[in-house]
């Protein structure tokens, strides 16, 4: 009797651990191992002592995604290079923020680092949960600046993982939202990928044919800070909206209402009816089944579209940048998964964690998880400008579709906007409030103005506390 409640937890935890280690095992299956796995020369050319904290062990929380699986398969190389043991735990994307916050706020140091949502850095920093990384970047014993070349990482992502100019996370993988369209359908009607929001709608209108199960347009409609509040900010900024009036967050400006109205109309008129419950995998699935003519979402969803087992549209896919909003701006996401350092670790563990981060985000590892990777899934969210411009990357991504790399790279370089979403410590509450408001407008429960006015009232309450 006494033991029953006490046993439940370790039992479950053990199962989780076992599950995690099975995952790692599966990920390190020999046939997936990088062919020249023992070639560590590119890392050893860095003027740092990789073995300085040999024998430490760290744990890393990531989401189950191929771009992290690829990194997992390279861990034996990292362990050979540094003598640091790494345990990877896979946490579903819907839970990783909560798990990380639980760990960080209770200072248990369970995760030395985790795949962090860029919008959460202000919260982490306000609570002093993560280390400022400038001191690691500037410490010659820890970082060979010339070798690591921090400035080679996309500026938008560096900025997104920084607070007040100080880096708190190093981007590992990321994405930009782009237009994905059916080239064959567009060509048949002589359409061009949209340059403006109106063209996006007129293209959708021209191709919308629900009777034959082809819908003109799809955008994420599911409620969530990472779902509808991932698409809406781009539209909002394209309509010329700004999140701040002085120091206050304002979400019910006339631009905001117009943007939400546009979003509602676009989905109501041209999207599959279920789109209000759809996240990106649902949209990518529908597109790969040929029932959606255009969507705007992460460039990395191309991997789903080109899966020969599922997709019926391989070879018919085109990519283009976001169309311009009424204010002439194209606004794409600045989403990336970065790695921060948990502030409640010991100094030695922090160094070990930094070495892991430096290794994972280095140009060499980026290449080894992408075009040099021997498995089928080549990563497309590389963190470095030089990688994006390399011919090897172009060759590896060649089959993704028409204009894939130019569309994504131009978006990365020109259309990103750090003020895409309001970067404040209260973001989790604001993001959730906005997601709820947007959804109530999308499903017709409330008018856009009414939904945003209510969100504004609530956000004011949240901010004053």
């Amino acid at each position: 009797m006494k033991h029953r409640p006490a046993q439940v937890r370790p039992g479950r935890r053990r199962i989780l651990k076992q599950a995690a280690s099975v995952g790692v095992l599966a990920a390190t299956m020999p046939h997936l191992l990088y062919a020249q796995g023992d070639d560590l020369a590119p890392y050893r050319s860095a003027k740092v002592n990789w073995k300085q904290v040999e024998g430490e062990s760290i744990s890393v929380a990531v989401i189950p995604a191929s771009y992290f699986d690829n990194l997992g398969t390279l861990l034996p190389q990292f362990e050979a290079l540094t003598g640091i043991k790494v345990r990877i735990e896979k946490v579903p994307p819907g839970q990783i923020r909560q798990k990380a916050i639980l760990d960080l706020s209770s200072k248990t140091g369970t995760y030395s680092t985790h795949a962090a949502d860029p919008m959460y850095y202000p919260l982490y920093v306000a609570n002093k949960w993560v280390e400022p990384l400038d001191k690691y970047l500037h410490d010659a014993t820890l970082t060979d600046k010339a070798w690591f070349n921090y400035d080679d990482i996309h500026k938008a992502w560096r900025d997104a993982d920084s607070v007040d100019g100080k880096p708190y996370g190093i981007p590992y993988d990321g994405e930009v939202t782009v237009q994905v369209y059916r080239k064959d359908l567009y060509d048949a009607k002589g359409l061009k990928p949209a340059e403006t929001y109106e063209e996006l709608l007129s293209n959708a209108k021209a191709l919308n044919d629900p009777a034959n199960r082809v819908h003109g347009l799809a955008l994420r409609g599911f409620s969530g800070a990472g779902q509808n509040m991932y698409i809406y900010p781009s539209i909002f900024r394209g309509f010329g909206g700004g999140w701040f009036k002085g120091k206050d967050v304002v979400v019910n400006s006339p631009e905001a209402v117009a943007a939400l109205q546009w979003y509602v109309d676009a989905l109501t008129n041209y999207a599959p009816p279920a789109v209000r419950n759809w996240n990106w995998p649902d949209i990518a699935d529908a597109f790969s089944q040929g029932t959606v003519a255009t969507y705007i979402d992460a460039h990395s969803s191309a991997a789903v579209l080109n899966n020969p087992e599922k997709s019926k549209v391989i070879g018919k896919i085109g990519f283009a940048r976001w169309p311009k909003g009424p204010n002439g701006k194209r606004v794409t996401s600045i989403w990336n998964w970065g790695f921060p350092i948990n502030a409640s670790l010991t100094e030695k563990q922090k160094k070990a964690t930094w070495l892991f981060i430096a290794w994972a985000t280095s140009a060499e590892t980026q290449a080894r998880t992408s075009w040099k990777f021997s498995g089928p899934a080549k990563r497309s969210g590389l963190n470095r400008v030089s990688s994006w411009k390399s011919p090897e990357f172009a060759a590896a991504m060649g089959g993704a579709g028409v204009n894939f790399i130019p569309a994504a790279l131009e978006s990365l370089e020109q259309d990103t906007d750090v003020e895409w979403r309001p970067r404040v410590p209260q973001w989790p509450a604001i993001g959730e409030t906005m997601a709820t408001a947007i959804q109530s407008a999308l499903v017709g429960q409330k008018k856009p103005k009414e939904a945003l006015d209510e969100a504004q009232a609530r956000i004011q309450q949240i901010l004053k506390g």
Partner: protein
Amino acid sequence: MGVSVPRPGDTLARQERRFALALLAPALLVLLLTTTAPLFYLAWTSLQRIDLGMPWLSGFAGLDNYSKMGADPRFWNSLWLTFVYTGSTVVLQVVIGLSLALLVLQIPRGQGVLRVAAILPIVLAPVVVGLFWRTLVLSPEFGLVDLVTRALGLGSHNWLGDPQLALISVIAIHTWQWTPFAFLVLLATLATLPPDVYEAARLDRASAWQRFIHITLPLARPAIMMVVILRMMTALSAFAAIFAATGGGPGSATEILNLYAYRTSFTELNLGYGAALAMVLLALTLVISYFMFRLRRAR
């Protein structure tokens, strides 16, 4: 436990009581630590201002979290939804469960099979039920319900995407899962009702309806009340199925108090206010259960 040396003046009964207490102590202690202590911690948290988004404001807040609810439309909305959800699911479960039980009693054979079939939804985890309904039953175009409504010419509907339909849908999900419980309890009760009373009534020419109103209902009343109390407590604290099916959405259309407390604490990271909401739900459940038990004893 060491050997207890009998002290002078101890009766055997007292020794035994002490021994029993010693045996129970570990279990009680664990219970205290795992259920009561967190409850007090929750109450304490509800008096604090703990908002991880604004750590600089943390501190003791007294009853601020509670007074804030008065002006919080989402709180009132969730409270209203809690009552709607609880009331409708309990009534539906009892009515459908009782009707099914009466119907099945008329079946001479095969009751055992029906009883086993009825248990199936109960043993499913509510999360599984929520996901199952969301993906297989209620999804537009592919879902079972949509197939039926389209076949009947009622058209395709976004069952979980439309605010009103979503509320009806989560009520249907809960009713589907838990009606069998009411059914089984009431079936067992009805089967034990004394046949001689009915025989006497029949001799007095009481109609079937009169027999139901004046005999069956009063005799089954204790069982019905028990079902109502138990189901009410479950419905008030329902979470997993709604969380899996709609997440409280669309908007806040299915956000009962429990989900609102969860969202506030773990999505918006306002732990103090979330704890206060949970305390309100706890108080509500206690008060309602207290009155239901009194109602049960009355008469």
